[in-house]
């Protein structure tokens, strides 16, 4: 008797659950989004993407539902979530960051997949068939020029600038940016560089405390996922030591204590890939499936911090003029 | 032949708890000898057995078996020559495996274990035959897990396993102490049956002075790591329990309740 009741209860529960799920209102358009982890840049891209697609949907009078998943940095989660999104058979999928894009592309050939926030898609998404999206390769050369300008303003007497690259040695996109940065340093001349690497948040403080960091004039942090989540550790070192920090993108500077950046606006990046999505949802093929970020790069300087580091207001204004014009 | 010369074992060297468990103990035993060892707590009886079997390392002295020096031979290698029955019935058998598997393990003691089958059909037949000869009824439980057996049954099994492949030395460390009197008697009878006319050396530690006198042909009393009294042959058979008790007080050994009540 008891067993029978238990079985009946279980069946009723299962049925009600399935009906509940099935009864969710279906939208005209379903878009799946997979993001590797949470930080300002990736969130900004997602925001920009959603707003552009939503605006278009409202215009043409359709409903759109976004199915968002975040892997929280766990590669096993990422696989499961990618499989889930593919199984849900959406109209379009967006992968934000390299590993998410890889996970989506390797699980479906039939659903259109867009990538964004992938620094070097030609290399990192090679072999996955046809890829389309917007890369977030940032203007590294100009960022190094910004380094030179800021340090010269602070220490006009110096002949060589010692520049420390702080990044996660295991992220290929960071390595690529650092190599580009070194090329620009060589071209401009007057730089000595050191690589300060860490592969997990526990190692960052130790790396910063090493001998290499002695007499460093400036820190450059590329758009590195690990560092982006841990900028506070870097600032805990740089601020007391009066070292300016030039970041790969403004989200990392926004944390309050970065000095300056000239970089990609990830919100606009999201909008750019959103526009590609609209074309695909309208059934068109893209003329330019693999784009680089084409919008205006954003200049940002933290004036309070710059003044505290010893720059004068005139110098700050000069830098602003030089970079804001571009 | 077992020859133990100047065996010394000290625990916790250099600390406040330092204790000399064996102090220059020497002993010689011939094939077929059955030695009983008695003594108070901390006399060094179990330590002696553990040194002979290789569980404990020795600090000084030698142990040689048939002329071969085995003092520093690893325990598992020494098991080829030395088999043991522990005081705790749970220690001598693998509870999660069944009787025939335990016997199969014992059957391979001292041999290299390769990738042949863990137990063969012929072995099953042999084990069945051996078990029925002991009259304990274990042959009908061969496929049963050892953990379901009683303490007495497990200890009997451990004893059978110890003599399945003839050793050179059989060590019995108070192997009936954890059993009820009736079962203890059964196991002791089984012990005598297996060791009668045997070619191996048996050493039995016991707290029961009656058994110590009646069983075996040699007796040794230990106290504080030393051999304080020895007897063999007729002299041993003629001993009375009161003699032994007075010997205990002579050497200043402590008589505990177990010894007195068990005798």
């Amino acid at each position, binding site marked *: 008797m008891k067993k029978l009741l238990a079985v009946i209860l279980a069946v009723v529960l299962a049925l009600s659950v399935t009906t509940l799920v099935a009864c969710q209102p279906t939208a005209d358009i379903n878009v799946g989004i997979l993001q590797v982890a949470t930080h300002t840049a990736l969130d900004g891209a997602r925001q920009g993407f959603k707003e552009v697609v939503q605006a278009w949907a409202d215009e043409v009078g359709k409903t759109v539902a976004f199915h968002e998943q975040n892997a929280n940095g766990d590669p096993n989660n990422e696989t499961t979530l990618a499989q889930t999104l593919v199984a849900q058979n959406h109209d379009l999928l967006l992968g934000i960051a390299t590993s998410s894009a890889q996970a989506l592309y390797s699980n479906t050939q039939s659903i259109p997949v867009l990538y964004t926030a992938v620094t070097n898609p030609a290399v990192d998404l090679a072999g996955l068939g046809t890829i389309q999206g917007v890369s977030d390769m940032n203007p590294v050369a100009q960022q190094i020029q910004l380094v030179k300008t800021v340090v010269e303003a602070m220490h006009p007497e110096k002949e060589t600038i010692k520049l420390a690259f702080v990044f*996660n040695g295991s992220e290929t996109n960071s390595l690529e940016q650092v190599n580009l940065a070194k090329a620009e340093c060589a071209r401009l001349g007057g730089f000595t560089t050191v690589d300060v690497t860490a592969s997990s948040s526990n190692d960052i403080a130790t790396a910063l405390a090493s001998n290499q960091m002695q007499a460093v004039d400036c820190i450059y942090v590329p758009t590195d996922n690990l560092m982006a989540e841990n900028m506070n550790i870097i600032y805990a070192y740089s601020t007391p030591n009066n070292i300016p920090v030039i970041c790969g993108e403004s989200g990392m500077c926004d944390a309050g204590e970065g000095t300056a950046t000239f970089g990609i606006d990830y919100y606009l990046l999201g909008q750019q890939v959103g526009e590609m999505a609209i074309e695909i949802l309208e059934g068109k093929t893209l003329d330019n499936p693999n784009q680089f970020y084409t919008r205006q790069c954003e200049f940002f300087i933290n004036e309070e911090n710059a003044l505290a580091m010893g720059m004068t207001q005139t110098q700050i204004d000069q830098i602003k003029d030089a970079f804001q014009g571009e | 032949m077992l020859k133990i010369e100047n065996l010394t074992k000290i625990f916790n060297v250099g600390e406040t708890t330092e204790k000399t468990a064996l102090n220059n103990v020497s002993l010689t035993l011939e094939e077929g000898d059955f030695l009983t060892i008695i003594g108070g707590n901390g006399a060094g009886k179990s330590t002696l057995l553990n040194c002979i079997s290789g569980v404990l390392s020795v600090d000084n002295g030698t142990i040689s078996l048939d002329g071969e020096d085995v003092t520093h031979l690893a325990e598992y290698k020494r098991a080829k020559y030395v088999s043991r029955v522990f005081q705790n019935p749970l220690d001598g058998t693998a509870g999660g495996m069944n009787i025939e598997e335990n016997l199969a393990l014992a059957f391979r003691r001292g041999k290299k274990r390769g990738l042949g089958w863990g137990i063969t059909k012929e072995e099953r037949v042999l084990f069945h035959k051996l078990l029925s000869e002991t009259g304990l009824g274990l042959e009908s439980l061969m496929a049963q897990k050892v953990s379901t057996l009683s303490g007495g049954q497990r200890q009997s099994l451990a004893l059978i396993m110890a003599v399945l492949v003839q050793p050179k030395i059989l060590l019995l460390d108070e192997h009936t102490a954890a059993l009820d009197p009736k079962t203890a008697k059964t196991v002791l009878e089984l012990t005598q049956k297996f060791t009668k006319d045997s070619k191996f050396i048996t050493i039995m530690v016991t707290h029961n002075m009656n058994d110590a006198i009646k069983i075996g042909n040699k007796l040794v009393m230990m106290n504080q790591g030393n051999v304080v009294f020895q007897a063999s042959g007729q002299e041993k058979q003629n001993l009375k329990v009161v003699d032994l008790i007075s010997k205990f007080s002579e050497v200043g050994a402590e008589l505990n309740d177990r010894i007195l009540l068990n005798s």
Partner: protein
Amino acid sequence: MAQFLNASVGGISLGLIWGVLAVGVYLTYRILDFADLTVDSSLATGGVVTAVLIANGCTPILALLASCLAGSCAGLITALLNTKLKIPAILAGILTMSALYSINLKILGNRANVSFFGKPTINGYWADLFNLSLIDDKNVLSIITCVIVCSAVVGFLYWFFGTEFGCSVRATGFNSTMAKAQGINTDLTKIVCLMISNGLAGLAGGLLAQHNQSGDVNMGTGTIVIGLASVILAETVIRDRFSFWLKLALVVLGSVAYRLIFTFAVQMGMHTNDLKLVATAIIVIALTVPLIKKKIAHKKLKGGLNNVKN
């Protein structure tokens, strides 16, 4: 509804891959009675070895064998730390696991991951044979691969633990005092068992890497929890009288069940942040099942006795 089925296929394929690992955990945790934490890293080692080899042109099967070998080397290290240097089991496992993280990064060439999209994987054989799509039917292909691998693994272990040496390994786990007294070299049995178990972890890592077509240094995080959960789930149905191969097969199914519960949870809209909580809840429930059974049996007995009294 179709969604669930689709997602379940994915869950089953991953569950079978992790099933290989679960069997390895069963060997150390249950049979050898050794709490081995090395698997978190030995699985990743297997994965990155496969990734690097295939990216450089190696055949998929050879890469899998290499992963298995790499995993067993990891097991060897832990075993040596424990048997020769007398380091306690759990600590030995943790030490090897930590050291392997750096080694895994080195294997990857100081990067966090290596992908090999477009290169041949073991699934490719069935894709050609059955005319299936490598990507769209990836889960079905992985299921075929894993059913074959799991059967081979269970078959091998069933044979191995029936041999003399295999029995001595089991004896070591049940009662190492007795094993030594029976002339068994317990150091050797521990070493061999740990090598096999971590070899299986490496194999699972290789299969996972081929499924994802990439090897990541963090792919092994939480492996021991997954393995233990699968074993515990399986043990709610395993009975002593079951034959060994059946027990192993149930462990694999336990892993599949565990993965399906996750898939179900995510399909139901559960947030990924809560997945770890779900995992713990599953394990706790599975562990209390025997307790509840006892209570029910006891109540039945009491009820029966009361009836007799009356």
